[in-house]
């Protein structure tokens, strides 16, 4: 036990070495003088007196050392020595240190970058008290025709759970919502959320200023303060400079008068990860915006993410059990009978999922890819460590004599091992620091791979404390892993043998261990390359296949016509006029409208049949799109038979099908001129209506909602007066500039009152839809290149070391008549055996790796032999090339010189 006083004194001693040493020297001298004096007094000669005094004293140097140990911090002293020594070592061979640090920078940097993303999206907990007790109440539809996960709830469902479930101390609904905040005459779009009145209360938050929302605010028409809004701490600082007077301020939010009642606490960014809301309003406010109060409570619109807090003493499983028993009665109470027993409903479950980290829809798409990337970078790190272990071992064997000398001078084996571990730490620490820097730079670039533009600006890519802790752990682990092998080898050094031999030798066991690093690296690299090749092929397929679209110079604009006076037929006429006017603009090739943005993930699906007795025939589903004339011209989709739709009322009962729909509904006969019946069951009223349309054209197959699907059957219908909200203009022009100009000038002429909207280019829509695949392919490709590079370095290092060890042997062989060519082959043969071993092991590893990424692949088999062969080929080429450089050096060995050196 070391007391605080002693520790303080020891620390002080540590930093005052010189004066304390001087004092000790004086004291020892004085001791000897006193002893000599006494001996002389006993009648010894001066010389004998001094000799006896020294004998009685024991070793002077030992006494010094022991006193220093007793007074200071010996382990720290030794560590400083180790560090100084390691610095000198690195300075002597800067190339070695550089390669090692660079390797680690890449390995640790890649890990930090990926982990930053993983942490931000999946792991970081909400900044609310006792976040572990937060749960999400959610519907999953498993089994049945279509799996749907994480279905949101309707407000009435949330109210039902709130009323009936005992497991929760509170349940609230939350939805991301965009607002326009107008203050002092300045309008600006702001992200926000509409939340249940009790949301902040259930979360356990306290206002930074004013108050947070309460159930009294969440009433039709608003609460005591009218419509109440809570602003984010960030908005408070940025726009109101932290002025407390902001509380009570009247502003306009999306055309409605609103009172700011308070400021959310600092650091709170809502419960939907990667959304940074600046305004929180009650859910009722959204009903006022949409003018659908009645629908909010009675309608079945499922749009709210439901969160709840578990009561103390209730765990998630208990809550789950309770909610599951409530679910059937909830469905009975809330769903119309027509819907209640649909297969989708029968297969659905109401679940209680943990929500410590909040929730993000991004998780549905990015959880698996991120975990995959996390595994891939982990493998890269392993390869780094194997590589460094190899390098370190080579150096350790070159330093065997040094170890032997230090051992002979009294350094313990533990001390030697510690020295080596300190040396590895000294490379790992700068490697880790540089790695964090690299991750810092790479973060924003990586985020671009995530399609959601909101997430790009709002996900934190700056490594925070948790990430730095992981990085530090990574570095230590690496240092241990790659320091272990040489330390172990050093601890087994037989000092005497090593001292006697003129040339450093390494024991058989260590040489084997060292050689095993190569197959290990090769195997892991092969797996990485195979995975990267498969993912790369996926992206190539996605990019190059014929989608039925021409994407260049096509742009989409949302038609925000909600505030226009025109309705119904008038609006329909307006659309037609706009389309025609746009086409008259310079450079415009075709302009049209559609209700479905391709690749955007939206689906409109109806049931059709071609049979005359539509009501009693089996129907088949097809995707539906409502379009204007020239839609196919604008998107570059070929009309294979018949004609396009026309922009007039004559075509109201016409429709166009694609090849797949034609084959689906009319497998045997002609298509043009046939009638297709759209059978629609109204689930609310229980009645069935049939709408007929006559097929006037057949078009080429195209994709519909995602890039990954096989082209579905699609039925195109003309826009009608019933369906004139939520349409998009689509323009194809000679250039995007001309397309934009055409939109702006036409809108100014024909719909000056409607707000301008942001465009989306077709290429952008495609890229967003393929973003996950592109991210995976780019990252895994990068990691694979890294792995190849590292393996190359590893092989080069091993062969170079081998050649330097065998110079004499090579000299003897040459003196005995071996040709240079045979020496070259001999050196390469050894590496070829290691490569082959690695490839066999790697082949097995790759098979399993490929299987595990199966779900990410598109149009390529996980077992595709071409991929495996290509990956193996690449590794062989790199391996042999890396080995050839030192092998050529072996070829140039001069026999006489080599022999003389012995």
């Amino acid at each position, binding site marked *: 036990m070391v*007391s605080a*006083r*002693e520790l303080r*004194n*020891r620390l002080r*001693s540590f930093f005052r070495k010189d004066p304390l040493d001087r*004092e*000790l020297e*004086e*004291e*020892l001298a*004085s*001791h000897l*003088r*006193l*002893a000599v*004096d*006494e001996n002389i007094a006993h009648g010894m000669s001066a010389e004998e007196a001094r000799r006896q005094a020294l004998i*009685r*004293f*024991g*070793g*002077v140097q*030992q*006494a010094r050392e*022991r*006193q220093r*140990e*007793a*007074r200071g911090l010996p382990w720290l002293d030794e560590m400083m020595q180790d560090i100084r020594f390691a610095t000198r070592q690195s300075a002597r061979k800067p190339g070695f240190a550089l390669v090692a640090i660079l390797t680690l920078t890449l390995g640790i940097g890649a890990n930090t970058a990926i982990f930053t993303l993983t942490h931000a999206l999946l792991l970081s907990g909400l900044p609310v008290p006792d976040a572990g007790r937060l749960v999400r109440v959610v519907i999953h539809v498993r089994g049945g025709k279509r799996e749907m996960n994480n279905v949101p709830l309707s407000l009435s469902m949330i109210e039902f759970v709130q009323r009936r479930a005992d497991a929760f101390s509170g349940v609230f609904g939350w939805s991301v919502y965009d607002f326009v905040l107008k203050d002092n005459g300045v309008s600006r779009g702001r992200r926000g959320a509409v939340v249940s009145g009790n949301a902040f209360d259930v979360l356990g938050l306290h206002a930074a200023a004013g108050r947070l929302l309460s159930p009294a605010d969440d009433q039709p028409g608003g609460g005591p303060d009218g419509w109440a809004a809570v602003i984010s701490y960030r908005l408070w600082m940025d726009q109101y400079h932290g002025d407390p007077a902001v509380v009570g301020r009247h502003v306009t939010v999306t055309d409605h008068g609103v009172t700011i009642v308070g400021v959310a606490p600092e650091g709170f960014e809502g419960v939907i990860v990667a959304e940074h809301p600046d305004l929180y309003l009650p859910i009722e406010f959204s009903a006022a915006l949409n003018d659908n109060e009645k629908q909010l409570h009675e309608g079945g619109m499922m749009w709210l993410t439901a969160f709840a807090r578990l009561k103390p003493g209730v765990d998630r499983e208990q809550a789950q059990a309770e909610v599951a028993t409530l679910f059937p009665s909830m469905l009975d109470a809330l769903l119309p009978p027509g819907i209640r027993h649909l297969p989708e409903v029968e297969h659905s479950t109401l679940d209680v999922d943990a929500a410590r980290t909040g929730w993000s829809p991004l998780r549905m798409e990015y959880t698996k890819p991120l975990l995959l990337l996390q595994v891939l970078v982990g493998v890269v790190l392993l390869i780094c460590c194997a590589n460094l272990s190899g390098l370190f071992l080579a150096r350790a064997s070159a330093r065997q004599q040094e170890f032997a000398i230090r051992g002979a001078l009294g350094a313990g084996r533990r001390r030697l091992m510690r020295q080596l571990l300190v040396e590895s730490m000294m490379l790992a620490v700068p490697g880790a620091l540089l790695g964090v820097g690299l991750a810092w730079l790479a973060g924003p670039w990586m985020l671009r791979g995530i399609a959601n533009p909101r997430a790009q600006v709002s996900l934190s890519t700056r490594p925070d404390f948790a990430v730095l802790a992981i990085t530090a752990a990574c570095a230590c682990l690496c240092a241990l892993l790659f320091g272990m092998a040489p330390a172990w080898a050093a601890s087994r050094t037989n000092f005497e043998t090593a001292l006697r031999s003129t040339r450093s030798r390494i024991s058989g066991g260590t040489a084997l261990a060292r050689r095993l690093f190569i197959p290990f690296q090769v195997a892991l690299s092969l797996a990485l390359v195979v995975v990267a090749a498969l993912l790369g092929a996926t992206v190539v397929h996605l990019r190059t296949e014929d989608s039925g679209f021409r994407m260049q110079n096509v742009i989409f604009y949302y038609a925000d016509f909600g505030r226009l006076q025109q309705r119904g037929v008038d609006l329909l006429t307006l659309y037609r006029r706009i389309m025609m006017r746009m086409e008259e603009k310079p450079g415009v090739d075709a302009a049209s409208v559609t209700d479905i943005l391709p690749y955007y993930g939206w689906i409109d699906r109806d049931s059709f049949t071609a049979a005359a007795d539509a009501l009693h025939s089996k129907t088949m589903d097809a995707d539906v799109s409502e379009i204007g004339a020239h839609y196919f011209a604008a998107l570059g989709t070929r009309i294979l038979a018949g004609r396009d739709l026309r922009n007039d009322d004559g075509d109201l009962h016409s429709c166009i099908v694609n090849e797949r729909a034609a084959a689906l509904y009319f497998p045997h006969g002609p298509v043009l001129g046939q009638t297709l019946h759209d059978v629609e069951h109204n689930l609310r009223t229980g009645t069935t209506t049939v709408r007929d349309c006559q097929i006037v054209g057949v078009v080429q197959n195209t994709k519909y909602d995602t890039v990954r699907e096989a082209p579905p059957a699609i039925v195109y219908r003309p826009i009608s007066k019933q369906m004139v909200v939520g349409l998009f203009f689509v323009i194809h022009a000679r250039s995007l500039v001309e397309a934009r100009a055409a939109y702006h000038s036409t809108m100014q002429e024909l719909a000056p009152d409607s707000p301008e909207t942001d465009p989306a280019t077709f290429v952008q829509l495609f890229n967003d839809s393929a973003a996950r695949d592109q991210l995976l392919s780019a990252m895994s490709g990068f990691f694979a290149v890294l792995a190849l590079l590292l393996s190359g370095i590893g092989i080069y290092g091993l062969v170079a070391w081998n050649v330097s060890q065998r110079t004499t042997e090579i000299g003897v062989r040459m003196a005995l008549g071996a040709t240079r060519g045979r020496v070259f082959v001999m050196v390469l043969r050894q590496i070829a055996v290691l490569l082959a071993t690695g490839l066999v092991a790697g082949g097995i590893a790759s098979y399993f790796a490929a299987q595990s990424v199966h779900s990410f692949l598109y149009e390529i088999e996980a077992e595709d032999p071409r991929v495996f062969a290509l990956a193996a080929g690449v590794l062989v080429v790199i391996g042999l090339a890396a080995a050839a450089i030192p092998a050529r050096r072996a070829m140039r060995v001069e026999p006489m010189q080599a022999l003389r050196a012995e």
Partner: protein
Amino acid sequence: MAESKLDLLQGTLDLMVLQTLAAMGSLHGYGIARRIEQVSGDEVLLNQGTIYASLVRLLQRGWISAEWGTSENNRKARFYSITADGRKQLAEDAKYWQRLSDVMGRVLSMESDGGE
């Protein structure tokens, strides 16, 4: 195991130094070493140098204090004396040693009885 044996030896020497200083008042390192040698006769073969590790340890624990002065034969030397804390510690340690040696004595004599 080597660790605990060393601790015991260290403790032993520390205790001897404390007791010497308590009995003799202020003494320099050489004086302490000589005194311990004399008292223990030839039983303890002490390397005088080891006493300095013990002294610095006791100093840092605050059980003794040190001061440069002059010896009776006019040599400059560093004199140590026991502090109040040191006396307390000495009493505690002495009691512990006493108990330990009592127990050891009893245990060892029991063994020789049982051997008959």
